């Protein structure tokens, strides 16, 4: 659609003239949204004060008495001010800072972003000779914010041999990257998601002593690379001050993530194809664990019930079929339908699930606090206006029992088809 605002002076004039016979029609047309004034059933003029006015540039509500301004949106002038961040391009970097993000679930984790922030600190320290941040990622991903996360160069290695738990193949790829570009720094998350393992393997293979558990870096003239770091040692009871080596495994919140620039994130490829490797470790895949045995605070997938659930047997059955850990709102717990240790929220457990399905939960602030760090929230609710819907990435308006039943049927059908195909 065209962005140009077309004005019709005649209509504006009619809109200002309350006695004009077409006044109301024109107002509705210009306002686009809800009318602020109409004739009620008894002939009285009704006003809705909430839809009058617009937000002025200073954040104060303004009312335009001319009559042009109708409806919450304001006469078409409210354009989503898409702030585009400045693009930073580094054509010929003086050096490279390599980062190997975990990419849990195919996306950059918070830890990865912190690490990229740290990498930017290292790369941008000297404006005369800026470095570039190289990210090496493995396998398929769903991330589209590489540029905003501060990545200049991206090496994406795909293929069946780096999928799953393949430390030897991944290590081979990283060694190839080291040989091809010899980055000045290697930063790897010291996390259970795989970074801690891969980083130690890489350092051991290349025979360099890494710093582990790094949580702070400072510029330092004495150190070889110009930086010193503080790292946690002895199971988190010691702080070790040392110069920053080439390889660093850093903890979460080691730096602020990049927030106000965009970067090129241009794709690189390795100069040579990776040699096929004979792996001594074979991945037999994930094992089904009992979801009820997983602690709520670390469950990956939670199906949570609130006051809107009536059919409790159906709910438990759905959780079992979906393989989800069960959660509950406080009302469901207080009413005795769920155990106290299943309560999610301010006075219950703060959950970190990647996918949180809220069934019949209105989304009181005490409940929403508990799901702040969830990635994807799905709401199944009757009330389209409730707060949970505003939080949710996907909301289905409907009766919880019916939707759950249909979902269970779908999952079972898909499993059946898979079994028949196999």
């Amino acid at each position: 659609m065209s962005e140009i605002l077309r004005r019709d002076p005649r209509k504006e004039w009619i809109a200002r003239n309350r006695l004009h016979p077409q006044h109301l029609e024109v107002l509705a047309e210009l306002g686009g949204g809800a009318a602020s004034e109409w004739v009620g059933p008894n002939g009285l003029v009704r006003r809705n004060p909430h839809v009058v006015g617009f937000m002025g540039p200073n954040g104060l509500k303004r009312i335009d008495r001319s009559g042009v301004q109708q409806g919450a949106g304001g006469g078409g002038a409210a354009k989503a001010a898409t702030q585009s961040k400045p693009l930073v391009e580094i054509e010929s970097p003086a050096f490279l800072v390599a980062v190997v993000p975990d990419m849990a679930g195919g996306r950059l984790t918070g830890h990865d972003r912190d690490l990229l922030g740290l990498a930017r600190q290292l790369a941008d320290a000297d404006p005369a000779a800026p470095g570039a941040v190289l990210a090496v990622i493995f396998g398929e991903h769903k991330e589209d914010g590489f540029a905003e996360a501060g990545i200049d160069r991206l090496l994406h290695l795909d293929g069946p041999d780096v999928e799953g738990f393949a430390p030897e193949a991944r290590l081979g790829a990283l060694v190839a990257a080291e040989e091809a570009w010899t980055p000045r720094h290697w930063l790897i998350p010291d996390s259970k998601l795989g970074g801690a393992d891969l980083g130690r393997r890489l350092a051991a293979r290349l025979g360099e002593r890494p710093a582990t558990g790094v949580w702070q870096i400072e510029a330092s003239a004495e150190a070889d690379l110009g930086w010193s770091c503080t790292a946690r040692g002895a199971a988190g009871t010691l702080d070790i001050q040392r110069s920053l080596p080439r390889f660093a495994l850093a903890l979460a919140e080691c730096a602020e993530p990049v927030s106000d620039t965009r970067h090129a994130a241009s794709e690189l490829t390795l100069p040579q194809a990776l040699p096929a490797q004979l792996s001594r470790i074979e991945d037999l895949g994930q094992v089904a664990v009992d979801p009820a045995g997983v602690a709520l605070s670390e469950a990956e997938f939670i199906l949570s019930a609130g006051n809107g659930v009536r059919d409790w047997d159906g709910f438990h059955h759905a959780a079992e079929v979906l393989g989800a850990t069960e959660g509950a709102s406080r009302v469901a717990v207080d009413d005795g339908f769920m155990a106290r240790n299943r309560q999610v929220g301010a006075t219950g457990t703060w959950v970190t699930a990647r996918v949180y399905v809220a069934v019949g939960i209105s989304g009181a602030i005490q409940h929403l606090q508990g799901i702040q760090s969830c990635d994807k929230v799905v709401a199944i609710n009757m009330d389209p206006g409730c707060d949970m819907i505003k939080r949710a990435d996907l909301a289905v308006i409907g009766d919880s029992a019916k939707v759950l039943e249909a979902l269970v049927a779908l999952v079972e059908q898909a499993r059946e088809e898979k079994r028949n195909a196999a």
Partner: protein
Amino acid sequence: MTVLVSVGRHPVTGRSRRADQDARGVELARTLPGAEIGLLHAGRLDEGNEAALRGYLGMGFDALTLIEQPESSDALPALAEALKAAPPQLVIAGERAEQGEGSGLLPYLLAERLGWPLVSGLAAVEEVSGGVATVLQALPRGQRRRLKVRLPAIVTVDAAAPAPRQSAFGPAQRGRLEVSEAPVAADVEMAEWQFKPARKRPKRLKIVKAASARDRFKAAAAKAEGGGGQVLTDVTAEQGAAAVYKLLKEEGVLR
């Protein structure tokens, strides 16, 4: 098989004790029927350390091999030589030590030096047969992964491995510490570092970057907002379920 054990440090009192993860490693070895288990430690022998090491003997062992090394020396060459001299099928180690640098690098360096495969963070060893071990690796969020690894191999133990049994006092006192000698490699680099008790890490502040006061106020007073979530109104239960199913599939949480 051999379990590498170290001297731990109690997190509250600071006294030396058997290290928690190493004790779990010993327990893991104990779960395997018919395994011949040796305990190996490289380090200094003094009163405190001896009490801690005897803690492992109290888990049902007659002897523990101790390679004597001065404090702050690199245990890697001594351990590598000992393992090379009498190669076991499986070496079990903790993920990281409770004292010193505690970087968790030792198993990796050992694996690199011996040329053995390494699997980290085990919850259980299911089977050892025919030169192959089937193991369960602990993943975050309570998940498990089954792996097969060619022996000889080095594995490290996760906190999800079975909790160690109590150490019995009598057997602990009766057990023998078999002391042996090995060449000493000093850790030069570590001597340059400064060690301090861990400082509390500063809490991250929520920084709102906004051009105008209005945006800052809005950010501070904002209620949870979906930011463009998809809302399906007027759909049948089947359509709604299909949309939810699609999202669950995309996120890969359905098995």
